[in-house]
Every structure is written in C-alpha cells, then in structure tokens.
C-alpha cells in the first residue's frame, strides 16, 4: 500500500467526533430538547424544506419572532458583575452574553451562560494579572498557556459584597482592565431587563437576519435508511446545498462531487437560514413549528435543520470547554421524518469533548 510508505505525520488530521443518534419524538425518553438547550451560543440555523416553494405563514412568524440581540461596544467585564445588573437581569431569567470579535485561540474571551455562570478564557499574562482561581485549559494543560476562570454568580460565595465577589471585581477593575464588545440578550425579558447596561454604553439592537432561497430540480439522496455509515455523505450533501454548490459539474477534472446514491430529484425546495445571536429557546420553538408543518404534509416527507454554534465560544454543549484548533466547529443537524422519528448528528472539532 502506497500510503504506508509515506511518513505518518503527513497523513494525520486533527481529531474530530461525530455523534449519530436516532430516536423518536414519541419516545418519552428522547433527549432532543436537552441537547438543543445545552448548546447555548448559536450563530446560525438553516432549514431545508423539500417539496416546498414558499414558507408557510406560521413558520414565517416564528422566524420573525426570534429574539433580537444587542451589541455593546467596549464594555468593561466587571459591569457584568454589577450588583444592579445581577439583580435585574442575571437572577431574573437567562442572560446570554458572549464577547464579540474575540478569537479564542489568540484573544481573551468571555461568556455569560444562562445559568449564571461567568466564563473567562484568558491567556497566561491576563490570568496572572487577574489573580483569581482558574484552571489551565484542557487543550494545552502541559504548556499552561491558556486558563479558564469559571465563576457561578448565583452561588453564595459570589454574592455581591462577599470576599470572592470583591476579589474578582477588583481584579477586573484595577489589575486586568478587560474591555470588549459583547453580544447580549435576555430571555424572556428582552431589552427591558438590560436597559441600565445598554443606556450607559454605546450599544445597538440587531435583528437576526433571515434569508430564504428557493431551489429547483435538486438531486437529493433517498433518505429511507439513514445508516450511521452514510452520515458523512448525508452531511456533505446538506453542506453542498447550504453552500450553493452545483451538482451537475460540467467537468470532472474540476470536481468529482456526486449526489449519494440512491437519489431522486426534488422539483422544488426551500432553504431558510437565520443568522445572528440565537437562543436555544427560539430554536426549540422553530423545531416544534417544523414538527407541526411535517404532520400536515404528505407521507414520507422530511425536514432538516442545522444549527451552528459560535466558533469562539469558550463552551460548546453544557459546560464542556471548547477551543479552536483549526476549525472550532460545534454544530448539529436534525433530520425529522414524517412519522416522528428523527436523526440527530452532533459534530465537534479537535478542541472539544464528546457532545451529549
């Protein structure tokens, strides 16, 4: 075998995991809602509706009712520990906050999770300046070049005025003056709960951007038997549809991409995507709307939904630490069938742990 003669370093690729799950909405033990809920910071959701030429009105209204989010410029991180902010926003519902345009492989990144946990992913210098307990990042624990500080703001030792609280605030205020742009939203309060913070800093409100695209004469694999061994070809097909890659390549010198067999042709399909800073709750609503749509549609139909997490988020699913080695992907694809069964594919890159 020719490949054995090559040195191994040239043929290895970074680690990646793909979890394929099959279950049914009728199964009471299905964990779909937990799995959706656990991916906190979602960047994009795209939906593919086969044999559909225009979005049903209910679906449209769900898409248009996605929570809007705020971008705050140069927010000092200690403001997230502000007593008033904690009382009005963090302890009342869920706050999602993620530093914007910070890259987790080179910059400091901060995230506030909906359960009130504050995560600081810091480089070594910043971590030592901060002077607060943290752990070396899982992904370079030998060289210790990055540290993660994880604080539960709802715990008693972090109560405003307590010693731990004061130490962290003084660290963030006087020693490590960390300022960054933040994406922020509050569920279910919306902007009202964040008003005190938004009014003091330059901020802007943003709606998730919705784009729709009608596709016609799309060759599509027959989704009768969704075996895990075909998972990659299915995901490739969905990716090619999403990336607008044409199937009838005129020249096989350029590309040998083909639609997986057995295939059929869809006369029309609709691709809808929403982009921005999305909450799992909104995605949950979208999934239930799609289920209603499926129940009304004809036998044998299906719908796929893909959710991309933020590449530079310090966490992926739950509190699993996340990093970027080369791609930083954390995404899942949900393929729902007419009969209530679904296939869920959860994918992660090199710096991540196994999805739930």
């Amino acid at each position, binding site marked *: 075998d020719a490949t054995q003669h*090559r040195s191994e370093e*040239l043929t290895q690729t970074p680690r990646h995991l793909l979890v394929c799950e099959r279950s049914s909405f009728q199964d009471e033990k299905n964990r779909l809602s937990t799995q959706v809920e656990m991916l906190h910071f979602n960047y994009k959701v795209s939906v593919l509706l086969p044999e559909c030429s225009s979005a049903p009105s209910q679906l449209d209204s769900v898409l248009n009712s996605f929570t809007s989010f705020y971008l705050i410029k140069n927010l000092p991180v200690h403001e997230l520990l502000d007593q008033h902010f904690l009382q009005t926003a963090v302890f009342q519902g869920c706050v999602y906050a993620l530093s914007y345009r910070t890259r987790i492989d080179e910059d400091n990144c901060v995230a506030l999770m909906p359960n009130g946990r504050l995560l600081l992913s810091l480089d070594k210098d910043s971590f030592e300046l901060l002077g607060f307990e943290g752990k070396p990042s899982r992904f370079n624990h030998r060289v210790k070049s990055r540290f993660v500080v994880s604080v539960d703001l709802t715990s008693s030792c972090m109560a405003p005025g307590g010693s731990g609280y004061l130490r962290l605030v003084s660290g963030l205020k006087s020693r490590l003056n960390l300022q960054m742009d933040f994406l922020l939203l509050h569920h279910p309060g919306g902007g009202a709960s964040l008003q005190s913070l938004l009014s003091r800093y330059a901020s802007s409100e943003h709606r998730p951007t919705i784009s729709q695209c009608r596709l016609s004469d799309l060759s599509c694999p027959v989704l009768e038997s969704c075996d895990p061994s075909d998972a990659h070809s299915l995901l490739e097909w969905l990716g090619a549809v999403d990336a607008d890659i044409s199937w009838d390549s005129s020249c096989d010198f350029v590309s040998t991409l083909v639609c997986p067999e057995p295939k059929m042709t869809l006369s029309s399909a609709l691709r809808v995507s929403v982009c921005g800073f999305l909450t799992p709750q909104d995605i949950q609503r979208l999934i239930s709307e799609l289920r209603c749509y499926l129940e009304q549609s004809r036998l044998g139909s299906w719908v796929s939904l893909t959710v991309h997490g933020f590449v530079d988020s310090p966490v992926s699913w739950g509190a699993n630490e996340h990093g970027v080695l080369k791609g930083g992907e954390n995404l899942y694809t949900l393929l729902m069938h007419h009969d209530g069964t679904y296939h869920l594919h959860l994918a992660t890159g090199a710096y991540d742990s196994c999805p739930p």
Partner: protein
Amino acid sequence: MVRVKSRYLLCEINVTERKYLLQLDDRAVAAAVREAVGRIHGDYGEALCNIRFSVKYLNAHTGIVFLRFSKRFYKLLWSALPFLTCVKTRGQTIPCFLKCLHVGGTIQTCQKFLIKYNTQQLHRMLPNCKNEEEKEHVRKAIMNCSQAWGRKKDDDDEVRSEEDEEE
C-alpha cells in the same frame, strides 16, 4: 545516551552489462537517489535527503550498495527508489534499477544478511559451473564466506564499537 536511529537499506544495483558497474561511484549513486526522491516527493523529499542520507558502501564488483536514511522518514524515501532508472556518472548515463534486499537498523545486521545472501548466491552458482576448475573456485569462495562468518562472530564487539563511531 540517546541514539540517533537510522535505517540501512541494502540494495543491489542491476545493470544491463557488468562493465557499467565498475564505472559507478558512491557520489553518482547518491545523486541519482536524490534526483529520484526529488522527482517523486518534490522539494519536501529532497529536503529530507539532506538529513542523514548517505551512501555508506558501494561494491563496484557485485553492485551492492548500502543507503543510510533517517529512521523517521525512510519509508517515504524508500518509496521513491523504484523510480530510479539511471545513474549519471562521468558524463555517461547508465540505465539501471535498484533492488532492495534488506532493511536493517545497523550496518552489522545488513552485513550479516549480505554474507548469508552471497553464500546463497554461490550455492546457486555451483550447479551451473562448466568445469572442475570453476567448481573448485566457487567451493573455495563458499568456504571463505563461512570462515569470514565465523570470524565475524568473534569480532562482534569490535564491529559494535565501529558502529558507535558512526552515530
């Protein structure tokens, strides 16, 4: 002490006519190997050829050659050897190909193999001899081989110390 690990490839140069063998020298063989590796594995392969690659031994009579590669990537360099089709020496192009007989971690193991291999070859030559004189000649050579073999065993320590100088 950390040892720098190498792989020695014991190869036989096959040429169309015996007289070509005598014209070969180790520099020409090294250049030919380097050229083949460069052709098959590009700049990357050629760069690897600069790390610990050398022609350790060339017997112009039998066409036996020892190539030393670094252990880390000898497989990649080895894979280019079948594509070596000629050696250029003194303005002359000698068509030839390399047949790899043995891969060893030390020169000593290669030498042991080579002696065994040569004895085998002599045994195969014996029935083909045309007259008594030739037969006697080959028999003597075989005897010499086994004597050398025996002596080698006694001198093992000496060989190993030579080996260490290599590293």
